């Protein structure tokens, strides 16, 4: 019981707190950094759960790749005057209610389920994992490759420079939004 509690607390601190900061931070760059913290915390959890390889992959792709991508995204789309500050918070009540409702339902289901039949198992080693990718999960592996290719191509196509200038009406809309009224 105490093990459970302790583990739960550790997990919460490792991932729960940073995640909260991700969704509540006013500064976009800070939010991205908090995401990095969340992902790192998850990697630690993976390691604790004997999924060392996954922890490594997590750090590499998520923290290294995705976060970097996010930063680039922010840099490219920020306004040319000063840093990008975000003003958020509309619909907070709705969001909170929906999130809490979701949590309540799923948590209730988890608590009421009898999980005693599940015992501790040693997860596959890296070698086993590699073999399975090219053996059992070969099709999924190949499809994932195609998916990544498709994503790259579509991202390039979508982000091509086509339009000469932004919609002339919307800078006004954007300014209005920032001030809190709807366009």
């Amino acid at each position: 019981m105490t093990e459970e509690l302790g583990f739960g607390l550790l997990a919460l601190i490792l991932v729960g707190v940073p995640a909260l900061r991700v969704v509540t931070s006013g500064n976009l760059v800070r939010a991205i950094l908090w995401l990095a913290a969340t992902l790192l915390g998850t990697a630690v959890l993976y390691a604790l759960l004997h999924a060392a390889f996954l922890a490594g992959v997590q750090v590499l792709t998520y923290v290294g790749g995705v976060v970097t991508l996010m930063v680039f995204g922010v840099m490219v789309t920020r306004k040319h005057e000063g840093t990008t500050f975000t003003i958020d918070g509309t619909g907070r009540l709705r969001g909170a209610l929906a999130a809490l409702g979701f949590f309540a339902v799923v948590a209730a289901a988890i608590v009421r389920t009898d999980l005693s039949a599940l015992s501790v198992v040693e997860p596959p080693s890296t070698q086993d994992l590699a073999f399975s990718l090219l053996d059992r999960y070969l099709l999924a592996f190949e499809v994932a490759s195609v998916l990544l290719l498709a994503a790259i191509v579509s991202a390039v196509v979508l982000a091509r420079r086509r339009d000469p200038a932004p919609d002339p009406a919307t800078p006004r809309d954007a300014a209005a939004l920032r001030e809190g009224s709807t366009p």
Partner: protein
Amino acid sequence: MSPSVTLALVTLVAPLAAALVSVVIPPIRHRGMPAAILTILGSLLATGASALLLMEDVAGRAIRATVPWLVVQGRGLGEVGVRLDAVSIPMLGVVCLVALAVQVYSVAYMHGESPRSYGRYFAYHALFLFSMNTLVLAPDLLQAFAGWELVGLVSYLLIGFHFDRPTAARAAVKAFWMTKLADMGFLFALLLLYARTGAFSWDVALRPEVAEATAGLVFLAVMGKSAQFPLHVWLPDAMEGPTPVSALLHAATMVAAGVYLVVRADPLFAQAHWVQGGMLWVGTATAAFAALLGLVQTDIKRVLAYSTCSQLGFMVAALGAGSAFAGYFHLGTHAFFKALLFLGAGSVIHAVHSNELKDMGGLARRMPLTAVTFALGALSLAGIPPLAGFASKDAILTALEGRAGWIPWAILLATAFLTAFYMGRVLVLTFLGKPSAAAAHAHESPPAMTIPLVALGIPTVAGALLGPWLARGLGGEMHLHLGLTPVLASLAGLGGLGLSLVTYLRGREAPLAGTLAALDRASVVDRFWAFGYRSLLLPLGGALRWVDRYLVDGLMNGVGWGTLEAGQAVRPVQTGRTRDYALAVVVGAVLLLILAAWR
């Protein structure tokens, strides 16, 4: 399907087909003559079929061929088909023959009309023949009602044929609403019959009060259709229609439909003795009243209209006395000689271009054929032996012997005298004496008009011979006997005729003519109905129109408006904002999870 039934169906289908073709293919109707040819062709087929049916011997056995109508839960609500027996076949023959004669006559009479009107006229005639046959051949009261209403509609259409004439339009509406009002009796009788017996047949034994109520309600409709007092006022006004229409509908067939219905439904009326008593008196009163008014009319068609009304009263009285045969016999003979008289009058009107008796005179020399046939018709109507009219009138008077203390018998005998008298007046003023200015240039009508006159003249004269045959078919007997009634009837006829000839040839007027004319001008009954129309019917119609426009239409429009408003109200849900849609997804997911988990 037996050959008889096939023949009966021909009498229905042929005119219907002619009518449908004329209606559905406008070019045929608009060119005029093609529609006339179609209608007459249809009538020829129908007449031929009915003639063949007449030659069969149906005495004592009836052929009934029906199909169920409006099948609900395996059982039909009513029946549609034909019933061939000694009641329907003779009437069928009369209707088809007179219709054919009138239609042929119309070919020449309606020549002055535009082709479109001409075609419309003949289309209506075809529809009429179909409708009337539907009524005549009806196997139960439901189909009879259908035919009844249809002929009422065609009557409206034909009375108001020249609808651009205000008098004609008003006369058509008047005829329509008055008869429809009376038809409510028929409707309630149908409801009552269905409630009590689950069917619409007249061949059922009913409890006395039910029989009286049903028969009484039906008789209400008969009073409207057959112009009995006080529902008679539409008939003189109906003379606004073309003269052939007056001949066919408002003398020979449609108005007689009421009498036919009572004959047809005799098993029902035989159980209703109070109603029969009422019929006796209503018929007698109508006959006398109408004859008196007919004496002072100046329009030749109106004389004949009141005469028709009077003769219908005779028939109704006979039915009231319990003799379906006498009423039916007179119906048959009257159809022929009254149609003849109307067509003859039309011939005269055509020649002098006026309906008024004062514009006629001395036409016997200039229009011999018309004069002779008209005179024969007049003599038959006046009840001069041995013409058809005498035989049938005698049958009626015989049936009335001893009933209600001989009073109706006496009144009708006097009315027979009056009948001869006013017909004599017409004969003198139209064909004898000095011609008026208009009559001086008159000439005989074309063959298309004179041949039907001759054709109708034959049964007018010889119709008495068919009496015994008809009587046997109805399960009775008829023989000409030398008794009190025939002698008195003959004297009444001859006397009335002679006296009128003497009076009018000398240019004098009948006694009390002035009083009667004043009574006619007062039109008490007519004013009563007009008042009722204005103060009750029109406001009621206005109220219903308000309900229809604001409540019924309002409801429908409201539904439409409500739907649109609801759509507009729901529109804001579509914000176009991703966040809102994401919220919807999440909420939906949560709900589904709850549903799945707590099943």
